[in-house]
């Protein structure tokens, strides 16, 4: 890395140092200036202000985990659709794109690419359905 490149990180370094100093100062102020009147109510753990009920170590059904995984897969699918939609015209154009108009031949490349991607996800969906991962039962 050259010196110029290193100086590019200067502002980031300042921001980090400032962040550390800022949090130290305010935590310290609270520690030294704040009054400390402890009682049983204050020191007990709380959930949303109400009395805690039962042990926090509950066992969750593994099904939640399955649903979370499925959500992740199809969420990523949706996330991939946005950049694809944004560059769809450029993907499908064999020339330059000016103002959304293609100056050249329009191809099905972008469309077919997304079809391939979606069809692999459909395979995944079919697999998940047949393996009974979608139903809660």
């Amino acid at each position, binding site marked *: *890395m050259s010196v110029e490149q290193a100086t590019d990180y200067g502002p980031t370094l300042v921001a980090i140092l400032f962040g550390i100093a800022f949090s130290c100062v305010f935590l310290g102020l609270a520690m030294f200036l704040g009054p400390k009147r402890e009682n049983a109510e204050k020191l007990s753990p709380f959930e949303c202000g109400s009395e805690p009920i039962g042990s926090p170590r509950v066992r969750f059904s593994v099904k939640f985990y399955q649903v979370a995984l499925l959500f992740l897969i199809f969420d990523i699918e949706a996330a991939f659709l946005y950049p694809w939609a944004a560059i769809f015209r*450029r*993907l*499908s*154009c*064999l020339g330059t794109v000016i103002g959304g108009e293609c100056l050249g031949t329009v*191809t099905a*490349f*972008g469309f077919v690419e997304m079809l391939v991607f979606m069809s*692999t996800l459909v*395979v995944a969906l*079919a*697999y998940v359905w*047949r*393996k*009974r991962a979608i139903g809660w*039962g």
Partner: protein
Amino acid sequence: MTFDTSDLVASLPLLFLTVAGIVLLLLDAFSRVVLVGREHHLKLPAETSEAVAVPPPGSRNYLMPVTLLFLLGALAIIVWQVGTLPETSVTIYRGMLVVDRFGLFVIGVCVAAAALGIVSAPAYMRAHKMEFGEFYALVVFALCGMIILVQAADLVSVFLGIETMSLGAYVLTGSWRRSARSSEAAMKYFLVGAFVSGLLVYGIALIYGVTETTSLIDIKRIAMSRGAAPLFYIGWMLLLVGFAFKLGVVPFHMWAPDTYDGAPTPVSGFMMSCIKAAGFAGLIRLLQGTLPMLARDPFTGWTFVLSWLAVLSMSLGNLAAIKQDNIKRMLAYSSISHAGYLMVGVVALGTVGDAARGPLLFYLASYALTVVASMGVVSWVGCDERGEERVRLSDWAGLGKREPMAALLMTIALLSLGGFPPTAGFFGKFYLFQAALGESKLLWLILVAIANSLVSVYYYLRVITAMYFREPAPNPATLPIQSTAMKVGVLVSTLLVLAMGMFPGWLSALCAAAKF
């Protein structure tokens, strides 16, 4: 945006196996299942909420011949591609992958080893009551990852390949769900692997930060012209650590014995042969193909670093294997020491140059086949009627009398691992050490390697003497598995090991022709 159909043709093995994996996955998903209650073996009616769908015993066996056909098809495509390949390498998908003889050779070895390994899977899974239809799809998907890794021309595809390969291997390792050791093995492998993936990405990020590119060709050009910055060294060191973890090289081997020992035996065979071959091929492409100029620096060059990894790996692997009473675990440690011998080959690549690549590939191929043969016998013998593993040395005592065929095949495989003529292992070591001797500075490393091979003979022979000269224990291994496919698979791989040892010329010519 344009698209080259010639890219599709050039990456045909990858595309073919991807489609094959998807087909296998769907075949498994749409085959018949039975509903079984959460309690084992308790059959419940379909509407009961706690029922799970499992394949009926033996119902997924037909997937093995289908997979075998797909793998043979892939091999045919690879052979056809080698025949039509131009002299220079072809870069496809805008510089993401490269098609050359080196890559195709290693892919061919991986596909062949996988094909010889999966034939023992149905009988093994049946005997151990772990039937699992996704097995075949996962093997094929892992092979796709290996192809990407071996043909990678970009750090992004290196990472993509390693991850695809490892994901398949993690699930396969833990696929024997009844066995606590299999779950432990998968957990260890997964946690270490996930951590190492982080190191790999970090290394790639640092290299990108210095060179502003992820393309291997551009990285080579930039490192040649500008010299390497300190951050670049840190970057490739992290990459090297990542590869060393994946290959199970000391001191990054901690996961390997437990994982290879705990995983279902056909999976251990698959990992020791294919993942090792693909990983070493990726490492060779990265080090010799991209960073040859960093090879020879006295303390920071990769030949210096790797020669120590090789010494540690060979010595520790062999010393730990000596006291193993469990044959599968012994083979796991032996795989660590073989990673060390292969590292000697990579060091030779850095000092001697291209002349060492052929011998290294020969060693990779011979080791992959030998592992498949030995793990095939372990799958065959190492089981009892209750589906538990019988891989202790005492279980195998007197096997030569009870099951002469299995004992003979195991003997040949072990002799090849130990490097005796007339097996593939002998010529693997012979060619490798001969090539490394091209540089007199490597003499000490060769001497360490030879001393280690002598040590290793002890524990390989221990199994052989137990099989032939020890009286069977009161409760010996009983071999309940009667599977023609498994026997043929082991027989073919052992015959190949012998053929490579008796007629090494054809393979070594093939290896020498496998250029970048």
